[in-house]
């Protein structure tokens, strides 16, 4: 069999040869494990990866025995095993459900931490802009700037969050923003006049959370599609 003719081996950049099938399966397993990063512990991921690899190699052997060429056997085996990203997410979800180690572990998954970081940065920037507006009368002209900033910030933070790895990105944004909104309101009440702070806190609850979660979810979905594009196994 001429493995160079396999339609999707070149797409993932592996040279043809005896080890090409192993490399293709290795790539597939990388995709499979990606959604579990930051959620499922390393030892558990290693175990899953080894188990999945064993299953895939057994499938490849069976399809090869049925008369498929080596390249075809790998392709059909991967299709039979399923969408790696979806399975990885199911694994991550099963871990979060079954492990239920603690509420702390749930709220400190990778998506939540990343959302907390990005939305935290934008919250601080907005609070600083608000403080300048309130405390520096000479800077009142920046009102429009603070308004634009407060509208653009959740979308920018959501996009930044969605670009990272992890599952349940939207839920991570909601968890992070709920904490941040409460924190920024509490901190702001100590430093700024109440009306501006309460307006900002209300905006965070009513606009930042849905806009941020939506942006992050859309970007994560797009990113996933782009990553899988050109990767999905195809049969001739």
């Amino acid at each position: 069999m001429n493995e160079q003719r396999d339609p999707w081996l070149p797409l993932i950049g592996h040279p043809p040869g005896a080890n090409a099938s192993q490399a293709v399966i290795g790539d597939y397993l990388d995709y499979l494990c990606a959604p579990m990063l930051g959620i499922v512990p390393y030892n558990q991921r290693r175990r899953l990866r080894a188990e999945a690899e064993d299953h895939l190699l057994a499938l490849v052997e069976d399809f090869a025995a049925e008369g498929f060429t080596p390249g075809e056997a790998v392709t059909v085996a991967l299709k039979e095993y399923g969408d790696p990203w979806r399975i990885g997410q199911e694994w991550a979800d099963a871990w979060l459900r079954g492990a239920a180690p603690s509420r702390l572990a749930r709220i400190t998954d990778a998506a939540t931490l990343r959302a907390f970081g990005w939305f935290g940065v934008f919250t601080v920037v907005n609070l600083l802009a608000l403080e300048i507006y309130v405390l520096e009368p000479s800077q009142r002209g920046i009102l429009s700037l603070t308004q634009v900033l407060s509208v653009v910030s959740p979308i920018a933070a959501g996009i930044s969050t969605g670009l990272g790895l992890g599952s349940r990105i939207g839920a991570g944004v909601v968890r992070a923003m709920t904490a941040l909104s409460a924190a920024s309101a509490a901190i702001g009440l100590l430093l700024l006049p109440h009306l501006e702070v309460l307006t900002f806190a209300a905006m965070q609850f009513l606009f930042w959370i849905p806009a941020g979660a939506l942006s992050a979810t859309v970007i994560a979905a797009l990113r996933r599609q782009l990553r899988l594009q050109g990767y999905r196994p195809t049969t001739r």
Partner: protein
Amino acid sequence: MTNESDLLRGNTPTLVLAILSEGPQHGYAIAQQINKRTGDSLKFKQGTLYPVLHTLEREGWVSGEWRHVEGERPRLVYAITESGRAALAEKVRVWRRFSDAMNNLIGGVAGDDRIGDAHERTA
């Protein structure tokens, strides 16, 4: 439109426990058994089996153990536990009650073909 895969999704733990109740198996063999026993009518992506196995293991209903055989790849073999057998018995009881209820409910309803024929006759 009815999709058998959707029906299978919620019942995969029962299928896995039923297969393991007959003896320890590794994941690949369990997947092959599901395909074989359902006559390939309940097509499922085999990778989705492992999150289910993981969940069953966390529940304490199955236990996994690596087995090393000379000349073969190491394999994680799953065995049902006592609590797993009790859980299976309960799941089977619930399933039978549910399927009896469904059969009683839809037993007198014609399938697609007969409904189609009746529709053509009345048209």
